[in-house]
């Protein structure tokens, strides 16, 4: 369907010379991009590795250096941390797989981003619930050793902090997922 009036708008568009408006500082741009790219990919890999390593190291340390290694709480805590590390590895592999699954279009990219947000939300939820048995077993293990009240309070404080931090992180991902879903709805809306 041709619109003669729209042809005038097209002519306005075609008369512009966008190059005349801006200049790009190429050397500075190159430097910034390379720096940002290194930081962005490193921070994600780094945070995943820290979580995996922290769980593995924590489990090994507890088993090797605890003064009561045969305590049921210590063993349960170590097993839980090994499972935690394995779960993070599983989610990492899933995230890498998701990057290759979707078609190369705007819709495909939105769907990929939505799927990745869902993975992040689930990971945050699971990690948050993971804190509960972890905290409980740590407290029970400390109680078993007749640790002082101050140590109990510190342990409680850090686990509450972790719990609240997980809630904040989950809200952030849920908000981002909603924005992406809204964009997808706009794209698919007929009117």
């Amino acid at each position, binding site marked *: 369907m041709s619109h003669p009036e729209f042809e005038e708008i097209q002519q306005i568009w075609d008369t512009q010379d966008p190059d*005349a408006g801006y200049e790009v500082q190429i050397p500075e741009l190159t430097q910034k991009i390379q720096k940002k790219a290194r930081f962005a990919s490193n921070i994600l890999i780094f945070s995943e590795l820290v979580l995996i390593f922290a769980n593995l190291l924590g489990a090994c340390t507890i088993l090797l250096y605890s003064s009561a290694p045969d305590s049921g709480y210590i063993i349960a805590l170590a097993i839980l941390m090994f499972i935690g590390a394995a779960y993070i590895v599983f989610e990492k592999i899933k995230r890498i797989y998701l990057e290759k699954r979707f078609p190369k279009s705007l819709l495909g990219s939105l769907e990929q981003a939505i799927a990745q947000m869902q993975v992040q939300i689930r990971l945050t939820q699971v990690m948050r619930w993971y804190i509960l048995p972890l905290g409980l077993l740590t407290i029970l293990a400390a109680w078993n050793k007749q640790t002082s009240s101050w140590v109990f309070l510190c342990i409680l404080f850090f686990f509450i902090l972790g719990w609240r931090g997980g809630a904040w992180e989950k809200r952030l991902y849920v908000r981002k997922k909603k924005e992406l879903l809204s964009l997808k709805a706009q794209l698919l809306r007929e009117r």
Partner: protein
Amino acid sequence: MEDYKGLLFKILRSFAQNTFDQDDLFQEISLQLWRSIPQFKGEALAKTWIYRVALNTAIKWKRDEGKHRSSLTHSEGLEYLIQKKQSPPNPRIAWLYEEIAQMNKIDISLCLLLLDGFNYAEMAQLLGISESHVGVKIHRIKQHLIQKSKAHVSSGI
């Protein structure tokens, strides 16, 4: 970058309205283009590929409120990656960009593709929706711009 900077500047002007936001979005797009180079296997034209990555980035980009520095000027030593050249103002172009900027992000993308000469099939492939769906949206965008142009006498249309 030099060959296609005109295309990128059109996207910047449509999705971001002040110099700081345009600079921020330009950095994001450049970063995504740089990261996507290994995945570009030449199955599409470079222009199409750049448009896809740039629009992808622009529709997900959000203005960073915490780093808003639009009150600062170049004379205060702030380094921008893109610098505006002094050129005579074109009120008709300015009007058109103002109207485009007021659309939702998906419509902005479609409008840019339409004005830059992409056909319905190319738009459908780039967006991942059907050609008939593209047709319905394009018709609505055209009607909207025509109505706005009739209302805006000083645009000269």
